[in-house]
Each structure stands twice: as C-alpha cells, then as structure tokens.
C-alpha cells in the first residue's frame, strides 16, 4: 500500500518536475553492520528482538514486504539473558542452557540485514578471520563478505553502521590497548574507506552512522567504584565517606569505571575490604577501566569518527551522529509522555539486560533517528515508528526468588565469547 503510494508519488514527481528531490526506492534496502544493526539484544540474536532491529523497523515503515533477516528461533544464539530476580539480589542469567536455531537458511539470495554480531570494519570487508565470529556461518553462509553480498543484491539503498566492535572490546575487557582490544586508527580509516568505496560502486544511496562512546553504556556505568549495601543499594559510609573498592593498585580512584563483569566477583567478596566483610583481594584489571583507559577509548573513538566523517563526506554520504544520540540517552533526554528514559541499567528503558545493546524500545528510538536523517537528507517521507507499543506492553514475567549473583559469570562470558578481541583473526 505504502510502496504503491511511494511509487505513484515518484512517478508523479518525475513526470512533473524532474528537479524535485527523488524519493528513495526502498524496495531494495540492505543493511550492513554489527550486533547493533542485527538487533542483538540481551546478549542474544533472537527473532523476537531481530524484528525490532532498526533496519527491520525502517523496512516496515517504508512498507518493504520482502526484507529478509537471518532469523534465529528462541531462546536465541546464544540464549537470551533474562532478569531472573530483582530483590533481594538482582540476578541476570541466560534464560536457557539450550540454543535457538537459524530458520531462514534456505533463502536463495543474501539477506537484506547482513549485519554480523561481533563484526569489525575489517570483518565487513574481508573474509580473513571470519571463523572467529560464529554467527557469520548462518548469516553470511559462505557467500562472501557483508560488503560483497550487499553489492550482489544490487540495492537502491544501504545503511551502514560498522566500527562499534573496533572500540567495544576495550570496554568489555576493561583493557584499552590499540591493536589488541582497539583496532589501530590507521587501519580503521583504511578499511572504513574500503567498505564505503565498494558499497558506493553499487550506485545505491547510502546513509552511515558513527560510533558511540562506549564508556557511557550501562555495562561500565552501573556499578560504582565504592562498596554498596546490597539491601539499601546505597554506598556504605564509614566516617561519612564512601569506601572505595579494591583494584590491582589498591583502592579505586573515584573516576574508575567498574564493569558488570565485576558483579559476580563482588558477590564473592572480591574487591571489598575485609573490614566490610569482603575477602580483601583486589578486583582484576579486566573488570575495571581507569581514567587512562577511558581516555584511550575516547581518543580512538574520536579518531575513528573523524575517519567516518571524512570518508563519508568525500562520497556525500549523510552520517547519523550515533555518538550524540547515545550521549543524549545517557543524559536522560529521551523521555516520552512523562516516563523517564535514560541509559540506566534495568530501569532506564533503552538498554537490554546485557548492558551493551539497546532493548526493543532503544532500537525503536534509534530507528526514528535513522528515519529522521533519511527523510531530511534523501528527501524521503517515511513515517516514524510509533513508540507506544514498545513503551507499554503487559508481558509481566516473574520468577521465584533464587540465590545468585547480579550479572552472572555465564552472562559475562557469553558476551566475551560473542565479541572477541580485534586481534584474534
């Protein structure tokens, strides 16, 4: 229906005034990217969230009927994380020990959403090291790289949001080393240019997005660097002062970020001084980001975003400022209808249970940002997504209390496996 309207509008526009901004033929739309484009949510790729991936929502708003995704059945690959218990201790763990299965493998052409969770900019361009990303086997199916398959579909429109995994690993691993957990900036620029060059050759209209600051995501902002009373959830005060957690170099500085990976360790008393009932042993560096590491991540992100800006500007490709959008999320500027939304873990409404990826509502808000840019820069007129069904749905799920940790070790390891280091190829 909507497609027909678009086509009619396009025909009328073409017939009357040739100079009018042409509407984008969305019938052949391909998305290239990583987990954020795949619709990865709560540590999992699963169809219930893939359908809220921003490319799927853009396609729906554009009225595209045949937008194919590499659907994965419940409980997802890997199994989706769930909030098992909220009080007295918050427990997040995989909801099953089983795995889902791909269910669209027989499609006789590349998928429209080609995004591979874990993919770096090099992975999008090159086959080398593809084996380190297990989902590639059922998304790319040995038919070539994301870029090759995207071009093979002869699309009229492409979105590309790649590069997040070139910085994310540093936050997940609490270690910021260019060449190990961060792609060297020169290599990033080179491969990003190569990706855009090849996609451009397809003749498609392209819209890109830059990289958010991963030091603002709940995975690294939720746990304060001080001892917290598990009952009141407020910092323990001794002599009126909060008590720092212990790291490899002694008490943590107040600007140290503690990742969700520390949660299962804290539950065992690791990182908590003996006087407060802990073991007195330090948290390992792999669950901490000190001020220097944060600075390195931000510096590399800024350099990568400059590369994205320069490469896209040379091809007149509009760039979605995902960095600013995620900053807005963190600042709580995305509240709707009197409900406060922010980047807070569990209660902020925008992020999923892995603390790294958006939930359905977060993806819908992102989809509207993409649609806004597509409309303004390409002269399209896609309607924005109705957030009401995402904000209000009554699927209350409760489970009985169970002993356990906040962000379980399984949950953490599942993330580390899905997002390997950039030097692993």
């Amino acid at each position, binding site marked *: 229906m909507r497609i027909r309207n678009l086509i009619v509008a396009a025909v009328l526009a073409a017939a009357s005034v040739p100079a009018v901004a042409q509407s984008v033929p969305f019938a052949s739309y391909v998305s290239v990217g990583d987990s954020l484009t795949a619709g990865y949510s709560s540590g999992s790729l699963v169809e219930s969230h893939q359908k809220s991936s921003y490319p799927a929502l853009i396609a729906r708003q554009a009225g595209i009927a045949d937008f194919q995704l590499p659907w994965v059945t419940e409980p997802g690959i890997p199994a989706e994380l769930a909030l098992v218990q*909220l009080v007295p201790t918050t427990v997040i763990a995989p909801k099953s020990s089983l795995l889902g299965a791909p269910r669209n493998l027989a499609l006789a052409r590349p998928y429209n959403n080609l995004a591979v969770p874990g993919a770096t900019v090099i992975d999008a361009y090159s086959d080398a090291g593809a084996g380190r990303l297990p989902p590639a086997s059922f998304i790319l199916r040995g038919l070539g790289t994301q870029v090759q398959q995207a071009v093979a579909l002869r699309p009229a429109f492409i979105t590309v949001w790649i590069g997040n995994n070139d910085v994310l690993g540093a936050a997940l691993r609490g270690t910021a080393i260019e060449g190990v957990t961060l792609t060297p900036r020169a290599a990033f620029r080179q491969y990003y240019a190569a990706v855009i060059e090849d996609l451009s050759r397809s003749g498609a209209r392209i819209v890109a997005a830059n990289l958010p600051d991963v030091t603002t995501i709940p995975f690294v902002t939720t746990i304060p660097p001080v001892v917290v009373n598990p009952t009141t959830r407020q910092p323990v005060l001794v002599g009126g002062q909060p008590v720092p957690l212990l790291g490899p170099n002694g008490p943590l500085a107040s600007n140290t970020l503690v990742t969700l990976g520390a949660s299962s360790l804290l539950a065992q008393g690791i990182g908590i001084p003996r006087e407060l009932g802990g073991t007195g042993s330090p948290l390992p560096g792999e669950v901490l980001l000190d001020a220097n590491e944060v600075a390195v991540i931000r510096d590399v992100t800024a350099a990568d975003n400059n590369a994205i800006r320069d490469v896209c500007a040379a091809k007149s490709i509009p760039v979605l400022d995902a960095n600013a959008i995620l900053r807005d999320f963190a600042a709580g500027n995305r509240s709707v209808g009197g409900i406060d939304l922010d980047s807070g873990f569990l209660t902020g*409404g925008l992020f999923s249970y892995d603390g790294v990826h958006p939930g359905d*509502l977060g993806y819908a808000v992102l989809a509207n940002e993409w649609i806004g840019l597509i409309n303004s820069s390409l002269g399209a007129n896609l309607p*924005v997504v*109705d957030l009401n069904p995402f904000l*209000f749905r009554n699927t209350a799920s409760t489970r009985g209390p169970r002993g356990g940790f906040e962000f379980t070790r399984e949950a953490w390891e599942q993330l580390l496996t899905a997002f390997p280091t950039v030097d692993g190829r």
Partner: protein
Amino acid sequence: MLRTRVAPALLALALAAVPTTSHASGFAIFEQGARGMGFAGAFTSQSDPTSIFHNAAGIAFLKGTQLSFGGTLIAPTSDFTGANPFPGEAVTETGDAGVIVPPTFDFTHQFSERLVMGVGVHVPYGLRTRWKNRETTYSGRFISKRAQVQAFSLNPSVAWKVADRFAIGGGLDIRMSTLELDRNVGIINPFTLSAVDVAAVELKGDRATDFGFNLGVLARPSDHLSLGASYRHKVKQAFTGTADFNRLSTGNSQLDALVALTIPAGPVGVATEIEFPSLLSLGASYEWNEWTVAGQVDFHNWSSFDQLPLEFEGRPDLSSVVEENYSNSRIYRLGLERKVGERWALRGGYYYDETPAPAESVSPLLPDADRHGIALGFGFKSGHWSVDVANWYLIFKQRSTEGVNRDNYNGTYDNGAELFAVTVGYGF
C-alpha cells in the same frame, strides 16, 4: 465599614462556588457579567457594577446602590488525537471537564456626586482540565490527569469622578488561589523493560493569599463617545501544600519492594508558584440613538508565566520544573447593542483570542489554542431589577504540538466550549 460588613459574606459565596475552567486563552477568564459578555467582552469603556472587573473607573457613573450577581455555565470539550512517535496515531483521548460555573458578585455605593466605592468577587484566572479514563488507560496520565487552578479576586474598589465626563478608579486585588494537579508516576519495569504505573500523586497547593491592584480611567468626551483604559497588575503567588502519593501495585512483588525504596507513600510537602499575568485593556464605545457599538484590545502579559516549579520537600529527585514560556498575547473584541423600547436590549459580538502558549507547552495540563468567540445576549430592565443573559460560542483552532511537546507527548487538540451566563442586578 463596607468591607467589614460585606467581605465575609462574599468570601463565603466565592469559596462555596464550583471551580472553574479557562475560557480566555491561557487560563484567564473574561466571563464577568452577562452584559459585558453580550458585547463579547468589549466593556472597558462602559459602566455597570461588573466594571469593578472591567474598569474600576466605570463605577463612578453608577447612581445610588447597585448590586449584581450571577454565574456562567461553561461546558468545555476537548479531543486529542495522538501522533507518532508518542503516544501514537492510534491514540485518541477525550476531555472530561464537566460543567462548571464561575460566579460574579459586585456591589457599589455612591457616597457623593463624585465618589463611588464598591467591592467585587471575580475569578480572573482559573483552569480545569480533566481527561476520561484518567485512572486507567489515559495515555497522558504521567503528565496530567486533572489540573485545577482557581484564582478568586476580592476586589474592593473606589472611583472618583474628576469631572462630569472623566473618572478614575482603582482597586485592591486580594487574590486567593488554590492549585491542584493529579498525575501518575510511571517507571520502567525491569522485568518487561516497558512502562508501568507505580503511584498516583495528588498534589494540592493550599490557598495562597497575595495582593495586587487595578487602575482605570473612563472618559466621555461627548454624549456619544466613551473611551476606557484599565490595567490589572500581575500577582505572583507562592503555594505550599502536600503531594499525596498512593502506591499502585505493579503486580510484581519484587518490583513493588524496589519501588518502596524510592517512591514515598503518603503526603510529602510540596511548594510551587505561579505568576498570574497583568492585563491592559483599551476600549472605545459609541452610542447613537438606540445603538451602541464597542471595540477593545486586551494586552495580556503572559510572558510572566514562564515556568511551574514543583519542589518536593526533601526529595529533589522528585522535584521538577514544568517549562511554560508563554508569550504575550492580544485579544480583539467587537460588540453591538440595540435597545428595544425602554426595557429590552439585544446584543451580539465577536472576539478573537490569541493563544500565549508555544507549541512545546501545549499539553494535557493546558491544551491552549487560538479561538474565535461569538456572543449573543439580551438585557431586560424593570424597576429596580435587571436581568442580563449571554451566550458565547467558542470556535477553537485545531492545535498541534508540532512534534515538539516538552514531554514528547505529541498530537492535535480539538477544543470547544459553550458558555451561558445570567447576571441579575438590583439598584436601590
């Protein structure tokens, strides 16, 4: 003497009256007497006991002792259609303000050929918005389920006829106001990552009493022509009161336990303030045989209504500031009267009222819009008695939030109202 005898009775009358709604733009109310309403409110250059509201100088021309009282029956309607992204095109909501009756009461007494004093009770500012299904599914319930502002003005006034054709007047504006605001608190349910109601808050600002003043001049340069100007000063009112929090079960005991750590149960002290704007009216009227025509422009200094702070005692986390950022607005009025015999008068008029609310402030709390007003009325006099009746039919322009509402609650409001006023006068 006058004040001590009359004021307590007037006050009792006023406070017993049913609350009111906003029927000039913003939350101003111009329905102050059916005779003036017959002229579509173009009454600054004329004279009857309700001049205590319209132009204090007007009472200088009243003989003997005059008493006037009445009310305006107001039946407002409001329909809302949502827009994407929120609350979505599928959402429609309906207002439920009911029928409301703001009162007027005026009393004047001529002490000498030149001196007339009086007292009036009016509701110069007021607001009531209320939405259907507000306790259940109403999509704006986290912004405002019900809002009510009542500003009573007890207005002792004095007017002096400087010359036969020229009078000045003024009044003390004793403003007694209350404010109520009901809404729900919603949070994200961590189990569903979607929104859930956790508390219903009833906020009540206790009666605040503050003082303003009003001034006016009325000139009758010829037997036919009258020129009037009046000014009512702004009044800033600070309210203190309580916000009653009633927790609502989410259906999940774990979440309820967590909510209990952050959302209070019971009353919390609350403070807020509103600066009610000043109003300047300039008008002229011309009488020719049985005809009177009157025109007027009102300048409403709404820019003083810039924000509505809500400060919860000891709970800065719950406190907020509702930005309003109103701009100054004008109202244009034109009215006509034809006398029929000694006893009857027929009236009609039109006004155009500009909304002071920017698109971002158009909300369930106050979905303001430009409006056209069409007035019809008549008057009847017999001996000491007079009766005036007026009907206003308001045609509101559709008002879209243009996608920029501050709470990201966007859509289009379609308002309407019919008003019916009766004022009874008695002259001694």
